[in-house]
């Protein structure tokens, strides 16, 4: 099974294996290119020695022989290098957490805990909305109370005004003065009757 080294890819922005593959292919290309250059240089030099009796085919054989040998060692050495680099350089140790994932260390919330947190937030929001509308209602009542109080105070002032008028005209207590008036008028009636009787 391939270890995709996803966490390393998250950090490096590429998969370590790809990086190594890219290096391997580049190195291998260089090796082949260099061999071709070596071969072409030798063939060119041989042009200067027509009696040397060394054919291009022979040179090609030599090139392949040397290249085969180099390739074997190259693959073996590269395998070792890749192993070391993937283990010690292009890898993220198991105990290491990348900075962008720190939050998972600080808040290892389970699904249930997360849901509970969201529920609590929803509930707080509902309660806040309820409080806010309750607050509106209270404010509305306070406004209404101001009007009502003003009306009631106006009525009380009206009564005060009434009583002040009375006081201003010498009758501070109506009850008594009516009673007094009634009494007086009864007396007057009595006197009136006497007068009428006497006058008859």
């Amino acid at each position, binding site marked *: 099974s391939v270890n995709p080294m*996803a*966490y390393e890819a998250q*950090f*490096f*922005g590429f998969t370590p294996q790809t*990086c190594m593959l890219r*290096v391997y292919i580049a190195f291998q290309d*260089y090796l082949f*290119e*260099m*061999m071709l250059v*070596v071969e072409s240089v*030798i063939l060119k*030099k*041989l042009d200067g*020695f027509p009696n040397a009796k*060394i054919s291009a085919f022979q040179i090609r054989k*030599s090139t392949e*022989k*040397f290249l085969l*040998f*180099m390739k074997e*060692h*190259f693959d073996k050495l590269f395998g070792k*290098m890749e192993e070391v*680099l993937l283990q*010690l350089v292009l890898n993220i*140790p*198991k*105990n*290491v957490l990348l900075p962008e*994932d720190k*939050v*998972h260390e600080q*808040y290892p*919330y389970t699904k249930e805990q*997360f849901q509970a*947190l969201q529920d609590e*937030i929803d509930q*707080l*929001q509902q309660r*806040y909305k309820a*409080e*806010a509308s309750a*607050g509106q209602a*209270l*404010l509305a*009542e*306070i406004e209404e*109370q101001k009007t009502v*109080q003003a009306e*009631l105070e106006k*009525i*009380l002032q009206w009564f005060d005004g009434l009583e002040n008028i009375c006081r201003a005209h010498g009758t501070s207590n*109506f*009850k008594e003065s*009516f009673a007094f*008036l*009634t009494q007086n*008028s009864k007396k007057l009636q009595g006197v009136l009757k006497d007068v009428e009787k006497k006058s008859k």
Partner: protein
Amino acid sequence: APGRGQLFAAVVDTFLEKLVAAGSYQRFANCYRDFYRLQPELTRSIYDQFVSQLQASIKEEIQEVKEEGNLEALFNSLDKIVEEAKEQEEPAWRPSGIPEEDVRSAMVPYLLKHRAYLRKVLKEKEEENRKLAEAVLAGRDRIAELQRLIQDRKQAWQAISKEQRELVLTFKE
């Protein structure tokens, strides 16, 4: 311990050394034996050029890969991250492969902040409403008081009406 950058360079250098050691001049001369017999010095210089060119190309390639992948900086920052985690024994968290789950923890700190904010404003609102409720109750008492006062005054006036009627009656008589 050497940083990742040094390790990387050391490993590549070792690879190169061993590769060159494997492809030794003896081996090279042995493969091109006829040409070597004909021109040993030339063979040597061709081999030397081959080796130095191969090393130069490989070093250049490595440099290119480092620049392209910004490896130097990444190695240094990874060294730091690893250094910071050296106390950490347990295997650290890794993506679960379920994005919804993984993004959840990323939300938590902000949800906690949001919850704290909501708790704060709710508390303030409740306190505010408590005061308002007190004011409303006080207002209701005040209104009740005023209504009672008015009631008293009204009754007092209405109480007069009995005497007033008597008086009117006497006038009528």
